[in-house]
């Protein structure tokens, strides 16, 4: 599979603040790639650089082979990529129907089927002025405009923020339909459950740096929490082996997060005369919290 998005040592400084500190990303064609991180981790800055809205301080990047920091090539990128921004900014003076018709006129590959399906599913009021829409309805409209334009890559910044669970499921279902048609999806989100449901790859960043880059299945299959109780007190430095991401030792007990190598780690724990050893699967949420805690 070819990479649709690729960045090499991408950096962005805002004055003294280093928002993005050397990102090397690779998003494969046809995949659904989730982009996770705390608020202010650098997600939106990265997305803005990819779309040519912000210039990188250093490093390079490309989408479909077009350079992101070259004005002419950035235009080609924008023809192939649909973007739904975090703030869901729309022309307030138009009605729902007007903005749909207006947007449609720019895109020859507009998907009328999706437009009708979403107008109905999202219960969008055609005559209503955008100014009068609730936050959730505005989000739905912004997603419709992104989904229906017929793109090769869809970049979504917090697509489901402010939506109710029913609308979230509708949005995910449309994403699934688009992926079935060959669209690549790159989305940032704080909704870990939706990431687990539809992503096939997870990228996690913290303070402008990549802290996790793995296929979703690998995360579910290999990440484990190992809890053990020992006859005497143990310390964190007793647990320095490959695969251990996070150690929390308290008196006679230890709780480890392992990203791989679980069998050897359990063996090591047994050698330390552990009385009981429990190995349990981890959710993406626990991995996320573990990563953030390890770095703070």
């Amino acid at each position, binding site marked *: 599979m070819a990479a649709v998005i690729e960045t090499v040592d991408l950096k962005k400084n805002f004055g003294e603040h280093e928002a993005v500190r050397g990102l090397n990303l690779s998003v494969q064609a046809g995949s659904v790639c989730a982009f996770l991180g705390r608020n202010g981790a650098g997600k939106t800055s990265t997305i803005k650089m990819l779309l040519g809205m912000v210039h990188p301080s250093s490093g390079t990047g490309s989408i479909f082979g077009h350079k992101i920091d070259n004005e002419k090539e950035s235009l080609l990128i924008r023809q192939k990529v649909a973007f739904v921004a975090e703030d869901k900014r729309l022309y307030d003076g138009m009605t729902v129907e007007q903005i749909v018709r207006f947007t449609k006129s720019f895109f020859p590959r507009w998907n009328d089927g999706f437009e009708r399906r979403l107008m109905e599913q999202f219960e969008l009021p055609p005559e209503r002025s955008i100014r009068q829409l609730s936050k959730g309805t505005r989000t739905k409209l912004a997603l419709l405009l992104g989904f229906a334009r017929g793109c090769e890559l869809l970049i979504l910044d917090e697509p489901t923020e402010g939506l109710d669970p029913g609308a979230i499921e509708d949005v995910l279902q449309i994403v699934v339909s688009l992926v079935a048609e060959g669209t690549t999806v790159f989305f940032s989100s704080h909704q870990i459950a939706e990431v*687990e449901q539809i992503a096939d790859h997870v990228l996690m960043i913290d303070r402008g740096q990549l802290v996790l880059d793995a296929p979703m299945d690998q995360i579910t299959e290999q990440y484990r929490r190992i809890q053990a109780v020992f006859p005497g007190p143990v310390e964190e430095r007793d647990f320095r082996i490959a695969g251990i991401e996070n150690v929390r030792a308290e008196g006679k007990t230890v709780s480890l997060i392992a990203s791989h190598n679980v069998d050897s780690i359990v063996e090591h724990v047994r050698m330390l005369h552990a009385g009981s050893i429990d190995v349990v699967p981890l959710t993406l949420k626990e991995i996320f919290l573990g990563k953030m805690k390890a770095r703070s």
Partner: protein
Amino acid sequence: MFRKPNPSSGVPIYVQLKEQIRHAIETGALSAGDQLPGIRGMAETLVINPNTVIKVYRELEQEGVLEIRHGLGAFIASRRRNRSKTEELQDAQQSVREFVETLKKQGLDQGEIRRLFEAELATDFQRSFQRR
């Protein structure tokens, strides 16, 4: 027929879906020749990644549970196909062994048995040739 997988269970979604399909076959909800939903249909119904459905169908095909007919879709394989070729040959070998033992008990020697087998195979070959 299929339930939405639980993404936070610690079991990968593709494994959960594989188990659901196997279970449906074991309980008789699906039987040989039945068609599974298309990749897109299955992904949209369960709201899971289409790539996951592709992975499930591909792995079940390799395991002999499904048959992918190109352009038509995924079908539950017949029981015969569910068994591997090796297993079939092992069973056949056992039958031949028992049959040879029986013939020996009836007083035939190795040469006679071999000639009978060869003659039978030759006749069978001729018959199938004439049918064509």
